[in-house]
């Protein structure tokens, strides 16, 4: 399996859009690694919480520009 990373760009969207976009991405990918870009702390927390509830692990959260790059992963 190639390590192509899906990126969801949820910058500028307020809740619940970032969570909906993340869940759509999770549904499509099923497993693997995904990155989500958000620009508020609320979105960061909500996306992390939602990913966790789907059994994905939040691997890393890096500040980027004015927001965050969240990396989540689920092993097959």
């Amino acid at each position, binding site marked *: 399996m190639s390590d192509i990373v899906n990126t969801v760009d949820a*910058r*500028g*969207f*307020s*809740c*619940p*859009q970032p*969570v*909906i*976009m993340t*869940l*759509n*991405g999770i549904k*499509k990918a099923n497993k693997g690694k995904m990155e989500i870009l958000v*620009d*508020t*702390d*609320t979105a960061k*927390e*909500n996306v992390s*919480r*939602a990913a966790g*509830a789907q059994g994905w692990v939040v691997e890393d959260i890096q500040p980027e520009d*004015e927001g965050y790059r969240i990396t989540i992963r689920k092993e097959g």
Partner: protein
Amino acid sequence: MRNVLATKWGIILVGATIGVLASLLQFWGNPANMGICVACFVRDATGALGLHRAPVVQYLRPEIIGFVLGSFVAAYLFKEFRPRLGSAPIVRFILGALAMIGALIFLGCPWRAVLRLAGGDWNAILGLLGLFAGIWIGTRFLRNGYNLGATHKTYTSVGWLFPLIMAGLLVIMLIYPKIPGEAQSGVLFYSVEGPGSMHAPLIISLILGLVIGFLAQKSRFCTMGALRDLILFKQTHLFSGFVSLAIAAFLTNLIVHQFSPGFVGQPVAHTMHFWNFAGMALAGLAFSLAGGCPGRQLFLSGEGDGDAAVFVVGMVVGAAFAHNFGLASSANGATPAGMVAVLIGLAVCLLIGFTMRENIA
């Protein structure tokens, strides 16, 4: 840094704090079952500024000022102040106005709905069911791709505007304080009787407002989000805060003897079950389409969200129309004009929900 207030126990603690403080605000002078009502208080402030002339609901509620400024301080302190705007402002304005009209037909925002329940006003059950129904419709739209589009970053000063307006209102209130028995003080109107005349001392209202604004910004407390996330994601995070608010207010009411159960004769309430339900359904739908309950919109305005500020301005205009056009209910019940307004409001919300969608995934 980990955000303790955004954990499960954090949100429960914040909900409970709001519940206790709301009940105590009643004890210290705010109207019965209305320790905090964001919709009613914005309406009262609208009246204090003379934008509507209903003499019984005019008071520049310091809680509202505190909510925005408390959130502003928290956002700055934790480096979360993000000036942003540009996501369908006119739509948010309309939704704010319609949400206010719906809330004033029920007579309360979601916060007051649970505070009424916690005080034994069973009419609130109909309101809460309506709120649930309205938000449920909103989640159907969200599932089908409804969204108001992205915001963009803007100048820091833009994010300061709304908090500055609030600070300005506080200054006006200090220049023209309430004169007992007088309906006017300088440019401000003050109710001599009715709910607008009932209030805790200014300093207490302001400080508690600041505390709640601070806590709510950090915890992202939102009553609409509570039900929306429950329906949409089966997530109980925000919902646990909403429930803890109700329980804490109920227990505090028992202790200070503010609990009196029943349907009839409840303070600032009416018993038209259908219109309690329908008014709140309109409000719930408008909140969910706009992404936050009135409280949350104030807190977002404090952290730099210009679109949330537009929603609040919409609420002010909605409150003015609600009283100038006789749409708001009274203890006697909903008005014929109010009933028409609910139907028109629901139609407008459905139009917005059906037409504003794109495939963002």
